């Protein structure tokens, strides 16, 4: 096991991502941040708070559970559904930034795009990930990345967050 | 095949003694230690128990009418496999055995098989309908010489019909074998009424429906001074009533089935109809009371209620399925397991409960004799220290509905001799009997 990102590095990465999102979206009143449960949702809250401070305006944040849209449901035991909460401004015509902890095969993001499509039609959909570990199986890329971590498929990347795990750090484990 | 006879060496007699037993000319020729006979086939029975051939007072052979489930021949083969030398064919065939024609037909089929005695039981009432008496006298006088009458499957419910039947059979010392089931308390009943039926949502079959008829008929038979036999007692309460009657000297006998000595209504939780039987499996408390009653003689005999059914009558919903289980091939093993291995009975008592007493009740004079010189050689051998695993696909019966599939049971029946002729040797049927 090796630590890939410390608490301080995570904090810096999220701040940088917050700035980058605002720079890429000049009309900041149209941005909505949606985290993918569970850890992506916590990251989304942190990014939205940071962006709200930088932009001096409230950035709407919510979460989007994609369980029912996964294409690998039959390969795993059923998992409990996570809540979905869409801010009152909705997603129609807005610039949605999806937030996930680790970008890997891309299948989670595909499911998230499907789930979004059921709810409405955003103006744009962008993607922020704390870690991009490669090995994509679909033509999906992140617009905002905390850190690129080249890994082998035999390794696993674990993101720990204080809200759930009591500590902020990203570790790589050899299986 | 011509043999000069069979010499059974070093066998344990029912009383525990070790002797040799020589069978020639259909009879027990000699019985002593150290018999030698160069012409006889020698059977080494060391460690085995020799008993008089088993006698079943309650067998369903399905012929005529449902030959796809069992025939007189296939049931006889099943009986020989289980150590029986006599079985009693219940009359609920199609047509019903309520006249001399049908009982003579069944009797002749039994004789043709030549594997054991088949004694037909006559119906008490025409068509088993409980209303008009069947031709009881004609059946008694037929070549089948019927002495046991029963509407088994149905209860002779009308008290006047029961009274008249009990009186009528006194003429030839017959006996009425009652299937004790109060009909209006058991409409649509599926299993024992109690904790398990409440959970399963299967219609209950109260113990009182059995006990009420036992009590009534005991009072009736005492009044008319006839002979009553209670089929397949299943409840602790029924045992108590019979115990009371016997203490008063009332002429009543009773039977218990092997399955009611072992199985309980808990098995219905599987909803597998192989456990659906009439009367139903009861509780552990009842099972223990039945074992005790068999040991102390309150219950006189074990009878199999061997009830073959085709696959389709059991491969369905519980409430659609037929009642009944196979019994002949597993009976003695179940009795050994529940009564002998548990030290409740010895082998002499087994010989009484499965041979002597049922033959006496049925009036089968050449059956159930003590092993003594000159008696017809109806004899069987069991190896009580061997065990076997019941496999429904390997039973001799035409049907497969044994509730003991997969059970490892003690006691392997190795030999059966019917009137001196071997029908089972080393566990294999050697004379398949007549043609179907």
């Amino acid at each position, binding site marked *: 096991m090796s630590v890939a990102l410390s608490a301080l590095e995570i904090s810096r990465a999220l701040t940088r991502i917050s700035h980058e999102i605002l720079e890429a979206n000049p009309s900041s009143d149209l941005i909505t941040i949606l985290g993918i449960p569970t850890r992506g949702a916590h990251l989304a809250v942190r990014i939205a708070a940071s962006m709200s401070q930088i932009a001096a305006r409230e950035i709407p944040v919510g979460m989007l559970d994609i369980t029912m849209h996964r294409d690998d449901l039959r390969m795993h035991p059923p998992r409990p559904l996570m809540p979905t909460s869409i801010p009152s401004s909705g997603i129609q015509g807005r610039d949605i930034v999806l937030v996930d902890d680790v970008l890997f095969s891309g299948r989670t993001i595909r499911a998230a795009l499907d789930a979004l499509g059921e*709810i409405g039609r955003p103006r744009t959909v962008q993607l922020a990930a704390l870690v991009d570990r490669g090995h994509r199986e679909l033509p999906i890329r992140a617009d905002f990345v905390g850190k690129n971590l080249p890994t082998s498929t035999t390794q696993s990347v674990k993101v720990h967050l204080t809200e759930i795990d009591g500590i902020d750090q990203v570790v790589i484990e050899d299986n | 095949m011509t043999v000069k006879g069979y010499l059974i060496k070093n066998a344990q007699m029912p009383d525990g003694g070790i002797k040799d037993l020589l069978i020639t000319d259909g009879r027990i020729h000699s019985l002593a230690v150290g018999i030698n006979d160069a012409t006889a086939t020698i059977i080494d029975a060391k460690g085995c128990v020799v008993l008089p051939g088993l006698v079943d007072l309650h067998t369903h052979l399905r012929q005529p009418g449902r030959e796809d489930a069992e025939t007189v021949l296939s049931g006889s083969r099943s009986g020989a496999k289980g150590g029986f030398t006599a079985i009693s064919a219940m009359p609920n065939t199609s047509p019903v055995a309520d006249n001399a024609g049908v009982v003579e037909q069944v009797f002749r089929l039994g004789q043709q098989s030549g594997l054991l005695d088949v004694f037909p039981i006559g119906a008490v009432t025409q068509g088993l309908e409980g209303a008009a008496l069947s031709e009881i006298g004609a059946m008694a006088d037929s070549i089948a010489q019927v002495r046991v009458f029963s509407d088994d499957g149905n209860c002779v419910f009308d008290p006047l019909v029961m009274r008249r039947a009990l009186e009528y059979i006194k003429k030839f010392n017959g006996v009425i074998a009652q299937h004790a089931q109060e009909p209006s308390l058991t409409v649509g009943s599926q299993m024992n009424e109690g904790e398990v039926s409440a959970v*399963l949502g299967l219609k209950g079959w109260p113990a009182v429906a059995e006990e009420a008829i036992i009590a009534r008929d005991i009072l009736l038979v005492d009044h008319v001074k006839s002979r009553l036999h209670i089929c397949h007692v299943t409840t602790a309460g029924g045992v108590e009533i019979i115990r009371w009657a016997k203490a008063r000297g009332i002429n009543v006998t009773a039977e218990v089935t092997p399955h009611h000595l072992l199985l309980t209504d808990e098995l219905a939780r599987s909803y597998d109809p192989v456990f659906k039987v009439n009367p139903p499996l009861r509780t552990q408390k009842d099972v223990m009371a039945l074992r005790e009653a068999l040991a102390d003689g309150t219950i006189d005999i074990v009878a199999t209620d061997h009830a073959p059914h085709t696959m389709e009558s059991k491969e369905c919903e519980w409430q659609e399925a037929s009642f009944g289980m196979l019994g002949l091939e597993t009976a003695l093993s179940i009795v050994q397991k529940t009564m002998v291995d548990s030290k409740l009975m010895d082998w002499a008592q087994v010989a009484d409960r499965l041979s002597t007493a049922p033959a006496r009740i049925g009036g089968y004079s050449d059956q159930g004799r003590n092993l003594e010189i000159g008696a017809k050689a109806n004899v069987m051998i069991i190896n009580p220290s061997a065990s076997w695993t019941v496999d429904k696909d390997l039973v001799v019966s035409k049907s497969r509905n044994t509730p003991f599939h997969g059970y490892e049971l003690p006691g392997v029946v190795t030999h059966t001799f019917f009137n001196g002729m071997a029908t089972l040797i080393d566990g294999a049927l050697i004379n398949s009997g007549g043609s179907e």
Partner: protein
Amino acid sequence: MRHLLSISDLSKAEAVSILDTATELARVSDGAVKKLPTLRGRTIVNLFAEDSTRTRISFEAAAKRLSADVINFSAKGSSVSKGESLKDTALTLQAMGADAVVIRHGASGAPQRLADSEWMLASVINAGDGTHEHPSQALLDAFTIRKHCAKGAPDLAGIRVAIVGDVLHSRVARSNILLLNLLGASVSLVAPPTLLPVGIEKWPVDISYDFDAVIPSVDVVMMLRVQQERMSNLFFPNAREYSRYFGLNSDRLKLMSPHSIVMHPGPMNRGLEIAAEVADSARSVIVEQVSNGVSVRMAILYVLLAGQSLEAGEK
């Protein structure tokens, strides 16, 4: 978990998880989303050997909202009612490639026979068997009770429920008693002694023959349907007498505690076990039970089917 035959198949955690999942699904279907792709390509057969339009429609709606293909094999006009054996029906469903069979059957234990047999491999969901169980009804009832009475708790601890009427013949009662106990509620049964099963002493319930005495102390009054034919079988003298002692009328409604609710699995006999004005009163959640049924059945299908492993060769 492969089958849902009885509430006794569920652990407390599994039961709570089904209710939680249903809660999320209810929010999804309340919003713009009418259809989820979750069970796309899966085949669910509604095998209804006994008529029950409402339960069938509820399962059908649940399956369709999860994008499953639904085949209805209903009683009228199908082979089920023409004496085809359960075995042959099962072999047919297997040949059709059913992933799940939702079965309603008049014989207690028929779903378990299907599940235990080697006739077919599909998941079996009991949608009501004889007088045995009706687990999906109990789950939707628990869902409804939790929503109204649990004050945010995940289970039903401390909630008091009276189940009133023909317990003897009620599959709804059997499943509810098991589930309510599993989730920590306390249950009182109120019925004439003739309509309580022998052996009930062993059940974890209180028993009363006095409806009026029980009403003020419970949070939920769950009425059971009384079938008219019970009268001819001597279970009670006549409808009038049954209603007088065990019917929920407006006088009894006044005895109920302030936040308590009235439930009924339907279909109701208005005027027999429940008065029309009670069924339509503000305390009644009977209509809501029906709408909750779809979310709860979606949750059941999700839990049973979503994790089902793939056949060999498929990835």
